C-alpha cells in the first residue's frame, strides 16, 4: 500500500461499518439457522410442489440463504474497505 499510515478516523469508521455488517449478517444467520426451524411443524402445513415448507427450509431453503449470505458478505465488505481506502492494492 502506498503512503503507509492509516489515520485513526479511517480505522474507526471502517470498523464501525464492518461491525454493523457483522451484526446484520449474524442476525440473518441466526434466523435461518434457528428461528425458522422452530416453526417447522407449523410450516409443514404449507405444501408447495410436494415440499412441506418446514422440511424444505431445513433441506434447502436455509442452505441457499447461507450461500447468499457468504457471497453478500464478500461483496459488502469489499465496498466498505474501498470506501475507507483500506483495501488491498
Amino acid at each position, binding site marked *: 500500500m502506498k503512503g503507509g499510515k492509516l489515520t485513526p478516523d479511517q*480505522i474507526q469508521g471502517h470498523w464501525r461499518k464492518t461491525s454493523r455488517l457483522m451484526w446484520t449478517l449474524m442476525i440473518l444467520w441466526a434466523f435461518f439457522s434457528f428461528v425458522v426451524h422452530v416453526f*417447522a411443524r407449523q410450516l409443514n402445513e404449507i405444501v408447495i410442489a410436494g415440499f412441506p415448507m418446514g422440511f424444505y427450509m431445513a*433441506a434447502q431453503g436455509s*442452505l441457499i440463504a447461507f450461500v447468499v449470505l457468504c457471497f453478500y*458478505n464478500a461483496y459488502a465488505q*469489499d465496498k466498505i474497505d474501498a470506501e475507507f481506502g483500506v483495501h488491498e492494492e
Partner: protein
Amino acid sequence: MATQNKGDFISNLGRIYGIYTGGFIGFVIFIGLLEYFKVFDNKILGYLFIFMTIGIYALIGWLSRTAQISEYYVAGRRVPAFYNGMATGADWMSAASFISMAGGLYLGGYGGLGYVLGWTGGYVLVGVLLAPYLRKFGQYTVPDFLSARYGGNTARLCGVIVLFSASFTYVVAQVFGVGIITSRFLGIPFEIACFVGLVGILVCSMLGGMRGVTWTQVAQYIILIVAYLIPVVWLSTTKFGFPIPELAYGQALKEIAALEQKLGILKPHVAAFADAKGAFSMVEFKNFLALILCLMIGTASLPHILMRYFTTPTVREARLSVGWSIFFIFLLYFTAPAYAAFAKLEIYSEVIGQQISSLPAWVKNWQAVAGMLTIKDANNDGILQLAELTINQDIIVLSMPEVAGLPYVISGLVAAGGLAAALSTADGLLLAIANALSHDVYYEMIDRKASAQKRLIVARVILLVVAAIAALTAGTRPSGIIQMVAWAFSLAAAGLFAPLVMGIWWKRTTNAGAIIGMMAGFGVCLFYLVGTRYFGMAEWWGIRNISSALFGLPVAFIVTYVVSLMTPAPSKEMQDFIDSIRVPAGDVKLVAAADAHKLD
C-alpha cells in the same frame, strides 16, 4: 507445476483442470465400453477405478513437491478463491458426508436434516467472523494466531492441545472410512485396507505439504461431485422426467406420504421433532437446535478448515473463497435429501409388501454383501413387511446406480467418489495435526534455530508417524465412529471459538482471560462427553453428548469475559496489532514481546 513455471500453472488452472475433467469423463466412458464389450469382469474394472484415481493423486502430489517452507505450510499463498473453494469442499466433505449422510436422512427423516444444516451454516461464521482476519494475520497455523494475540507459547500450547484432540478423533474416523471403501472394492481385509488407504493419503501430502494437498483436493472435489450427482440426476430424469433431482423429489415426498398412510407408518418422513408416534417431542426439538449450533460453531473452529483460508493471495479472496466453499459444499448437501427420498420411495413401493421371491435385482445383490441388507421373513408369509427389512445406511448412496438401472461402471465411479471424499478429508486433517506438531511445537517451542531443510524433514516424519498411529487406531475398529466425529466438532467449538472470535472482535480480551476461558470451555465439554459416555452421568436438561459444546461454549465466553475484565487491559502495541489485522491494507504490527520474529 514445477518450481520454475509456477506463474504459468496458476494462470492456466482453468485449462489444466478442464483437461483433467474431460480426461476423467473420457476414462469413465472408456471403462463403460470395456464393460459393454465384456473385456474384463467387473472386479477388474473396480480395481482400475481405484488405482487410476490414486495414481492421479500421486502424480499431482509428486509434481507439487517442494523444499520451501511457505509452499509446504500455506501453498505459497497463491490459491485463487474459486479453487480454494473446491479444495475446501473436498477437505470438508468426508466419507460420512458422501456415503452415510443420505442414509442418515433416509432413516431419520427430518431429524437427519440437523446435520445438513449444521455442516453448512458454519461457513457464514467463518466468512464473517474469522477467515479474512486470520488471512491478514498471515502466518502458518491457528496456534500461531493464539500465540501472537495472547502473549506467546502458553496460549499456543493450549491451542495445540485442543487442535490435537479434535482433529485426531476426526482423522481416525476418516481413515476408518478409507479402510471400509478400500476393503470393499479391493476385497482385502479391513486392517490391511487401512494401511493401503494410508498410502493413498500420504502420496498427496508427504512431498508437497499444503501445496500438494490443495491441488489434489481440487482434483478430488471434481471426482466426488460428478460421482455424487450422476446417479441421482439419471434416476430423476428417468423416473420423474426432470433432470434436477433437488426439485423433482417434492413429487417423491408426496408419494411417500401416501405410502406411509397405506403402510401404517406413524412417524412421517417429513415430520419435525417427532417421537416414534409422530407426536411433538420436546427432547427432539431441543437436541435438533443444539446439534445445529454445535456443528456450526465447530465448523468455524476446526483448524483444518480455517487453515485453508491462509492459502489465498489476498484478504479479499479469502472472503470470496468462503462463498465458493459453501457453494461447492451446498451442491452435495442439498442433493442428499433427494437421495434419501428416492430411496425411500423405491423401498416403500417396490420392496415392502412384495413377494420375497420376486424382489428387485439390486436388493438381491446387496443381500449378498455382509451386513448391508438383511431380510428376515418373521411370519413366514413370503411377503416382506417393513419390520422384516434391515438396511445399513451406507447402502442408499452405494446402491443408487443399480436402483437407477445404470451400468456397473457408475458403481465404480461412486466408489471412486467416496474414496476421494475420504482421502481428501484425511489429508487435510493429518496436515493440520502434523503442522501443529512440527511448526508450533517443534519449531516454535523446541528449536527456534532449525534450518528450513530440517524443519521440513521433521514435518514429514511427524506426518508419517501421526498417519501410522491413526491407521493403527482405526484398524482396531473403535466403537461409535460417527459419534466421535460429532465429538470432534464439540471439542473444537468449546475450545477454540471463543479465543479466536474474541481476539479479533473484542480488544479488551487479555492473555489470562483467553487462556483460562479456552481451558474452561474445553474442560467442561470434555467432562460432559466423558461423564455421560463412560461414567453414566445423567444428561443435563436432556441434551445428548454429541452437542456437549452447548455447555462448553457459554462457559468459554463468560470466563474469558470475566477474567479479561479482572486483568489489566492489553497494551497499546497489542491494540495496534488488532487494528492492523482488522483492515486488509497495510502491514501486520506484531507485538515484539509476544512472538515478533520475522517468518521466512
